[in-house]
């Protein structure tokens, strides 16, 4: 099944696929950032693959010089009972990824969480607020340069 997915994706748009990786039976396909919505729409609408559900959107700080951030999409196909992971690499100075909320409504809060925790902005998201932290919080806690103990005075105490 995994090789079939790669085959279909390459047939759809070879230049969008930057690489594939298989580990413990899990397939991860790295997709060019600009093409993520196109690829997502294809994967959802393709009658053979039909990945109808987005299970999670995960922001990752890899803390490396090139492509510091990654966004990982976990997809599930109800028809084939199969998982697939898409991956998009993001540069530190321009952490913007097109939003897939138009393809799967379920990506709404997951993208808000990735924005809140890692600071990746999703272009085209209708309501990109923080999910957990207060809206006036300046930092993104799951970045590797955010200390475990927190930053003193970064969270103001209630006035009353």
């Amino acid at each position, binding site marked *: 099944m995994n090789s079939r997915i790669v085959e279909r994706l390459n047939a759809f748009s070879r230049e969008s696929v930057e690489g594939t990786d298989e*580990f*413990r039976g*899990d397939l*991860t396909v790295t997709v060019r950032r600009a093409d993520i919505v196109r690829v997502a729409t294809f994967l959802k609408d393709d009658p053979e693959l039909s990945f*109808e*559900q*987005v*299970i*999670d959107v*995960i922001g*990752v*700080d*890899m803390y490396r010089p090139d492509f510091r951030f990654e966004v*990982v999409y*976990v997809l599930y196909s*109800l028809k084939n*009972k199969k*998982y697939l*992971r898409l991956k998009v690499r993001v540069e530190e100075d321009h952490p913007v990824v097109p939003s897939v909320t138009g393809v*799967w*409504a*379920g*990506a*709404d*809060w*997951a993208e808000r*969480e990735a924005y809140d*925790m890692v600071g990746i902005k999703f272009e085209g998201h209708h*309501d*990109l*607020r*923080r*999910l*957990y*932290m*207060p*809206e*006036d919080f300046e930092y993104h*806690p*799951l970045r590797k340069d*955010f200390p*475990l103990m927190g930053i003193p005075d970064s969270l103001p105490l209630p006035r009353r």
Partner: protein
Amino acid sequence: MTARNAADPERSKILQALEDQDTSLILDDALENQMILNMGPQHPATHGVLRLLLKLDGETVVGSVPDLGYLHRGYEKIAENGTYHEFITHTDRLDYLSPISNNVAYVLAVEKLIGLEVPRRAQYIRVLVSEMSRIASHLVSVGSMAMDVGALTVLLWTFREREKVLDIYDVLCGARFTTSYARIGGLQQDWTPQCTTMLRHFLGELEADLRDVEKLLSTNRIFIDRCEDVGYISREDAIRWGLTGPLLRAAGVPRDLRRDVPYLVYPELDFNVVTLTESDALARFYVRLAEMRESAKILHQALDRLPAGPFNASDPKRVLPQKERTYTKMEELIHDFMLINMGIDPPIGEVYHAVESSKGELGFFIISDGTAHPWRLKIRSPSTCNLSALPVMLKGGMISDIVAVIGSLDPVMGEADK
């Protein structure tokens, strides 16, 4: 807050109210009579610290914005700064109504990462405890949903039954809530004959109790009127919003990871995936009732087939030794010391493993860089994803139905806020 949605002034007013902690505000046109109402986070029917901002037209809900984060403890950050073993105790505190199945879900993800096969006895015991926790969690869900719409008796009866499951946990691992029972490569302690006796006793009484609950509710005019056609979400929307678990099965989609993406020894066990098509609060109630019966069926089979043998994998470099052996054997003491202080050495890679918990799909995504700490650990909690579809279910309903809809979603904020 910045006025991000300047195009929609009413929406920005709702968001402003979220920030200012105003309990209510009235929008400009008095004749339109729309009111913003704050519900929670200290509301008893929100099952924890869920906060809802509601836009009401009279008694009808026009729109709603859930607000999370009141129980956010930063577990993903904590996971990155501890060893794989250390995080097991934190998984108890995610979905605190079914702690053992969280333990199992997490260690299964780690075992997938390091490629470790656990003995069959351990797999059977993991199935046993996962299904017990599903029953315990569904009992709370059914009881508290009935309480939310006014039937207090059911809650007391279901809590009485749930107590028996907690007693079994107590005998099994010495804790009622914070179990931390599963270990990487096995379990903390072996299943005992006393647990079998207690579980058989519990299962014998469960059926009668479920019948009592049904007698109280299934022909109860008030309960049915308050739950039927309430919180409806269409099959297509349920899929689109990424719903999982009883909510999705009540919408007619037979998605159950125990069957679809099998793990542990579920393929050897005979059970049905319960689906209904009404997709309202009442259907979710019936799906949960039926799932408890299916879980009881699984428990009976697993007890009958429970194989003898070791309950921990034989891999001293990655599996914690038994406590009594660390006190008496030099080799085990060294391994214990190394595992606790240095941790395991997983390969470099990424895995995602999900289980069907009582609320839906509970998944762990782990990126390993080859060190003893996860580089990134993401918890895919079913409650968060189910709650994100709450505005769809509430829209157009009555204000008094909100508690019934939240009850039927069965969110646990410990898991939704992480």
